[in-house]
């Protein structure tokens, strides 16, 4: 069973994640912003696995996502922290596969990832420090949170149920 879960997560991280990021279909976008796929894929895995496994999955996912971006800010720190929190939550709560519960966790997770990248960009580029609340950053965070909140309840809960069945 654990082997099946592992295979499933490897399949999603190695095959689906790059495909989602590269293809990024227009019908799955809000204002040109696509969902935060690492959060959607990592959330069910973290909820169903112990912290060390969730954290390693977060690092692998982070490395994968970072390879599809311009290498300055990284997804790894935020995904690492989120995976630990979600894993702890998953260990102590039984009814985690609830539809809205998953959506809400994905929303907070996406907001956290967005804020982490925002802060990293501000630290890295002195030009962006003149005005901290850029309209662009707010725009990206809000759009990403909305679209992830819409996609996650379907995708992540299905993935979580599949992990449970396995």
């Amino acid at each position, binding site marked *: 069973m654990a082997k099946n879960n592992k295979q499933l997560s490897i399949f999603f991280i190695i095959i689906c994640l790059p495909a989602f990021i*590269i293809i990024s279909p227009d019908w799955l976008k809000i204002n040109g912003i696509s969902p935060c796929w690492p959060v959607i894929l990592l959330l069910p895995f973290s909820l169903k696995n112990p912290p060390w496994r969730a954290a390693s999955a977060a690092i692998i996912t982070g490395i994968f996502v970072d390879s599809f971006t311009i290498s300055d800010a990284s997804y790894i720190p935020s995904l690492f922290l989120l995976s630990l929190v979600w894993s702890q939550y998953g260990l102590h709560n039984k009814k985690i596969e609830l539809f809205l519960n998953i959506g809400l966790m994905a929303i907070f997770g996406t907001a956290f990832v967005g804020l982490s990248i925002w802060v990293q960009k501000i630290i890295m580029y002195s030009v962006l420090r003149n005005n901290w609340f850029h309209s662009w950053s707010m725009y990206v965070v809000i759009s990403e949170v909305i679209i992830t909140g819409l996609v996650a309840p379907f995708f992540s809960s299905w993935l979580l149920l599949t992990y449970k069945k396995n």
Partner: protein
Amino acid sequence: MIKARGNIGFHLLLKSRFWVIFLFGALLFGIRWTKGAGYLDLYSILLKPILPGTAQREWIKEGENIERNIRLKLLEEDNNRLRRALALKEFNSNQRISAAVISRSSRNWWQLLEINKGAKDGVVKGQTVIGPGGLIGLVDSTTPLTSRVRLLTDPGHQVGAWIYRTKRHGILTGMGTNRPKLIFLNKNNLVKIGDAVTTSPASTLLPPNLTIGIVQYVNEKALPSPYAIVQLTASPEAIDWVQILRNNG
């Protein structure tokens, strides 16, 4: 008697060819004075049905375009020769690689394009990428078959630019929106809304005189340095094909 003679004289005048000659002379004078305007107008009215139509007008325009292209090529060659003499970067239009956009992320945290030409086709990191309208970004990384283009709008992305009219330099900085910020290096730039922003003709990193955008807003009082907001002439959100300039690699 005298009265009768007068009547006869007037009658003769009416009947004689005097008026014919007078009118002919007046006509000639009129034609000469107006430089044949009547004739020309009449000629144009008669010619109207057989004047060149839309298709012919397009042919003429096409001919004009060909002539302009030839002139442009000659001027570019001349410019390159002079730039070579001054040891500046050349702008050689023959060394362009056309590539299709295969993936686009023009509004997200990272604003980039993935294109279908890579190291195998001679694309190198740092090369300039242009689209219809002008400069859109620089090559950030390459794989054997693809390249990643970092757009000018990407937050924190900086390239040198200058205002053609005032000949002042600045640093064009991406702010995430479609309108990057042009941060000037000194005060009193005399920049006006509507000024064209191009790459510097003396640049050693980018090809010279590439159109970047138009100044939309100027803040001369900003601290620590004045800045302008630039509207890009090329829209990365709508571009499907780009060209990579090989000669600044």
